[in-house]
């Protein structure tokens, strides 16, 4: 091992939870490093970014790194891929694990040649001694070398020594997607695969009494000699009608239909009309006065809101499942399947699920809970889906597929939600109302600030609540409704309260979150959770206050912002956008510009944006200038995890990479319908 007596690096949390080095990487004799992460590719490019981290620490070319999609029982358990934490969590773990793997392989070579490790160098996996002798990881490849827990004794590279991290490397997933080769979960075609559909009431608050599938399924039935079977299926191979032998587990309210888009009449009874959400404190609870150091000259107040937001993924939520009585297909050699004997094994059922869920392990736990199986009976495999911006219906589709697969053991079943399924039942980003009020002094600077939020919670992911967070589980007879989300603590990023604490150096502030406990729509995590409505409110209100004081919005912000990194991104964006000299093209009064600033979660990257906006018959963003400071000290690459979202500088961020600052320019003009009516 390198440098005995060196200080031990504290293991990053993901590595501490999954300490076996061999769980993170394998060196293959063919010149390939197989790298595993518990984080999954959601279209954000994380596999590429993690490959860079591994390549950097191992001193191999990125092209030698083969990323392995997360699978329960094989990959490290890193929970959910969410919260812009993948580089922070998985990147940090891989950094230490790969540095240690490098040191172990160097130690083997050094032992062989009887020379100190410090005399060896590594270039693209080739280990060289000063006397000219060489070997390589590939020659020395041996899984036993990494079959040990991480110690934290190998020092990862210092940031200034980075050669791969912080550069732009091509995305590992794009060639398949452009070729195109099947890569999405929707492209799976297993032998004998059936297509299933779950019929639900058209909306929350309705109870499904009956389904009139005629005439949609009539034709299929007539053709199908097995017409007596109640639930015809679409057979993938022939296009003809197959049939499920047994009634699916979900009785009554859910039946499997023949094809996704068959018109079906659903006979529903509305339940009691949904109660409008009314917290006890609505509309404005009296707030105790904030302590003031100076006498306020004026008070201001404004209210902002956002509607419920559909996830509106480009592709439908989809999953494939296979139930069998035989053991789930075994893992590659080095991986240990968890012990098998358990109560549920009496049934001998094994369930394998292919999903684009954000978390294979949380989904496995929830499926096992919902289906009364042991976790060992369930294997969940990640397969990429369409871009994911938060909690979508991937987990629900997985539960649907699992239920149907259990009804037809031995036949894989694919479930593809329809757009109507998505808009009716997917988790929505919660609506919110935000009221901001401030007292200001004679110059207009803030003396006290109050920020109040009314809205539903944001995190009803599987595994986050007491009730089972899977739609079909809630619809089954005896199933419990999915509970409204709790509010995670601010230290963990918060939910509705994310970014509600002002980043400015106000003498006094108060933030109140009025959590609505009635959930008219199913709500969960979308994009930055409460972050964007809170930032929108804060920054809009800062503009109101600056205007009321007759001051420049940039000067007004800088006057009250103490954080030097925050000031720096504002100063950078102001410089790069030509804020001071800006004038609208021509003499148009329909064009204006403005600035916004935030530090994500009050703990992550800093960002300032200058927007040039035109408002004629519609509001158009003509140009965005964005400055980002994503250097978190130990992990400058976190910023490379591209932002997700169409108003997002991810466009440049993931293409250009970033070291400390990189002011970015972007003409964001309409390409197609940027205003998806389903979204805003």
């Amino acid at each position, binding site marked *: 091992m390198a440098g005995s007596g060196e200080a031990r690096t504290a293991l990053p949390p993901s590595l501490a939870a999954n300490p076996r080095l061999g769980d993170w990487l394998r060196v293959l004799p063919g010149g390939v490093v197989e790298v595993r992460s518990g984080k999954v590719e959601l279209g954000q490019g994380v596999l590429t970014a993690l490959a860079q981290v591994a390549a950097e620490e191992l001193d191999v070319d990125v092209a030698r790194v083969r990323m392995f999609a997360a699978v329960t029982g094989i990959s490290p358990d890193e929970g959910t891929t969410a919260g812009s934490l993948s580089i922070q969590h998985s990147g940090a773990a891989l950094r230490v694990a790969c540095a240690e793997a490098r040191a172990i392989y160097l130690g083997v070579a050094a032992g062989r040649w009887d020379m100190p490790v410090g005399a060896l160098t590594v270039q693209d996996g080739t280990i060289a001694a000063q006397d000219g002798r060489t070997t390589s990881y590939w020659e020395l490849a041996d899984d036993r070398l990494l079959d040990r827990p991480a110690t934290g004794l190998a020092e990862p590279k210092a940031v200034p020594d980075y050669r791969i991290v912080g550069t732009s490397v091509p*995305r590992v997933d794009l060639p398949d997607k452009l070729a195109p080769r099947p890569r999405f979960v929707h492209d799976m075609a297993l032998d004998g695969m059936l297509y299933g559909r779950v019929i639900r009431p058209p909306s929350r608050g309705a109870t499904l009494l009956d389904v009139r599938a005629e005439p949609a399924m009539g034709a299929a039935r007539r053709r199908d000699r097995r017409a007596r079977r109640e639930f015809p299926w679409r057979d993938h191979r022939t296009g003809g009608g197959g049939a499920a032998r047994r009634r699916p587990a979900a009785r009554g309210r859910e039946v499997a239909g023949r094809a996704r888009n068959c018109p079906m009449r659903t006979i529903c009874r509305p339940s009691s009309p949904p109660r409008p959400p009314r917290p006890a404190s609505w509309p404005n609870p009296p707030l105790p006065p904030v302590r003031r150091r100076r006498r306020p000259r004026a008070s201001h107040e404004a209210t902002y809101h956002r509607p419920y937001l559909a996830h509106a993924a480009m592709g439908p939520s989809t999953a494939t499942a296979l139930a069998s009585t035989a053991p789930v297909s075994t893992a590659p050699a080095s991986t240990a399947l968890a012990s098998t004997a358990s109560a549920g094994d009496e049934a001998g059922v094994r369930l394998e699920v292919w999903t684009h869920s954000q978390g294979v392990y949380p989904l496995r736990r929830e499926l096992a809970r919902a289906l009364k199986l042991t976790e060992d009976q369930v294997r969940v495999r990640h397969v990429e889906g369409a871009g994911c911006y938060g909690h979508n219906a991937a987990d629900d589709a997985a539960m649907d597929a699992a239920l149907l697969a259990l009804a037809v053991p031995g036949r894989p079943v694919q479930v593809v939600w329809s757009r109507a399924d998505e808009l009716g039942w997917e988790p929505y980003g919660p609506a919110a109302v935000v009221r901001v009020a401030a007292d200001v002094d004679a110059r207009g600077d803030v003396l006290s600030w109050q920020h109040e939020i009314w809205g539903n919670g944001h995190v009803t992911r599987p595994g986050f609540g007491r009730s089972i967070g899977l739609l079909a589980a809630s619809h089954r007879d005896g199933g419990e409704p999915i509970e409204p989300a709790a509010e995670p603590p601010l230290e963990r990023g918060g939910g509705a309260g994310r970014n509600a604490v002002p980043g400015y150096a106000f003498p006094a502030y108060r933030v109140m979150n009025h959590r609505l406990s009635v959930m008219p729509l199913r709500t969960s995590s979308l994009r930055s959770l409460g972050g964007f409505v809170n930032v929108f409110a804060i920054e809009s209100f800062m503009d109101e206050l600056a205007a009321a004081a007759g001051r420049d919005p940039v000067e007004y912000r800088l006057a009250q912002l103490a954080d030097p990194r925050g000031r720096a991104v504002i100063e950078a964006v102001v410089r790069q956008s030509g804020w001071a000299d800006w004038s609208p093209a021509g003499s148009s009064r329909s064009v204006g510009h403005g600035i916004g600033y935030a530090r994500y979660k009050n703990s992550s990257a800093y960002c300032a944006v200058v927007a040039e906006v035109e408002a004629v018959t519609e509001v158009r963003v003509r140009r965005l200038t964005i400055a980002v400071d994503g250097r978190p000290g130990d992990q400058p690459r976190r910023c490379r995890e591209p932002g997700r979202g*169409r108003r997002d500088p991810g466009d440049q961020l993931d293409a250009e990479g970033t070291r400390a600052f990189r002011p970015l320019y972007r003409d964001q003009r309409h390409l197609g*319908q940027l205003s998806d009516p389903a979204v805003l």
Partner: protein
Amino acid sequence: MPDTDPMRVTVLVNGRREEVRTERDTALLYVLRNHLGLTGTRFGCGLGLCGACLVLIDDRPAYSCDTPMWAVEDRDVTTVEGLGVSGRPHPAAQAIIDGQAAQCGYCISGVVISAAGLLAVNDAPSEDEVRAALDRNLCRCGAQNRIVRAVLAAASSLRASRDSG
């Protein structure tokens, strides 16, 4: 009454004559993906709104999710798989890889089809013409500007190869 009798429909897909046993009102998209295994064409919204399922029908981009089989009988359908020339991706696809002009990539087959449809009739499009041609393609991740730059790059590489060839 829609004709739902099973029957064989003949369609030309990527230059090959394909006979498919299906209902006449089955959407072309399902035949491409499920019967012919051409999964490059994506199911997006299923409503003719997002552009993920675009194919060329007689060289013009069309939504395959709401095009019934009877409408393409004996017509020439080109999917994204059929765009490449001698094993190499279409210049637009190559330019998208070169420019890393995709984020999740779910929309990108449809984008390549729109670009190919444009470049077939206009090998020197302006940026506005590219944006107009891609107007039917939604990208929810935010790769639009990179995509526009890639299509413009594809146009110039097409012109260059033509000039040199």
